[in-house]
């Protein structure tokens, strides 16, 4: 039962990604061609509000729902991996028109071919694990 809240948050996330067409292959092409503000508005407003929310959490020492202090881990500084991995992902993101979240939303939407992409993505994550220590 403790997990049901994550299911509900996930459902909300899936609906918003579908209804705002963030899962649309066409929207990703449009974004990389700079032919609409839509995706920039989505990511930009999410980040802007995210920065504000995290600053408030840090400044006010807000505790989480379990009463524990909130610790937001820093991302490891591995700039060459961030960049090279980022480029590799970017190539795939544009080709397939979906990043990991939308892959699952699209599967639920009924696109069967997406299951092939998900399986390949899991295998890609596996290759990363055996490739790099």
């Amino acid at each position: 039962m403790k997990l049901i809240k994550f299911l509900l948050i996930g459902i909300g996330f899936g609906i918003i990604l579908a209804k705002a067409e963030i899962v649309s292959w066409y929207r990703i092409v449009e974004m990389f061609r700079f032919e609409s503000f839509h995706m920039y508005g989505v990511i930009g407003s999410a980040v802007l509000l995210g920065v504000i929310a995290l600053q408030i959490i840090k400044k006010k020492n807000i505790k989480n729902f379990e009463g524990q202090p909130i610790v937001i881990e820093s991302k490891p500084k591995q700039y060459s991996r961030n960049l090279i991995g980022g480029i590799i992902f970017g190539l795939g993101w544009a080709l397939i028109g979906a990043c990991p979240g939308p892959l699952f939303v699209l599967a639920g939407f009924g696109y069967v071919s997406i299951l092939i992409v998900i399986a390949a993505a899991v295998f890609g994550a596996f290759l990363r694990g055996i490739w790099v220590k």
Partner: protein
Amino acid sequence: MEVLFSFWSWYVAGPVIALVMVFLILFGKRFGVSSNLETACSILGAGKINDYFKTDWKTQKWNLVFILGALLGGFISRQFLMTDETSHISAETKAWLSSIGFENAGGMFLPEEIFALDSLSNPKVLFVLILGGLLVGFGTRYAGGCTSGHAISGLSNLQLPSLVAVIGFFIGGLVMVHFLFPLIFPL
């Protein structure tokens, strides 16, 4: 009710996505979808081949439940919240996609040329699906996160590694669409 079935704008979606991240943090977790790909490897027994995957995947159950929810969200949208079969993209994008062989550009949500089941008999289509998945899976994990983990969570936390990763995302995406699409398509 009409607003429920029409297209939702960025100024609805962006704040809701920020809220998803904040809720996950307040519940003691973090917002990052691509970790699930590694968890899937661990569940499938990759730990027997490589220690990298020797993790206790049960600590990541919440994240698997989260993406199961996202999947259900997709299903609910399809069944109950959709009316028209379009992506409301710009006319310029539609025209350009038509010029490289995409008929019905701006449908919902994926082009038939790549994702329709009867396109699978074309080996090039299968190649694109598998290559795309491999790039997404390998790239996100090598970069240490995807759009949720780096672009939303990382940038919200003012992380330089995330900014570097997002710049990478855009370099890759721009190269794919501007230079490689005209070579790859039509399939």
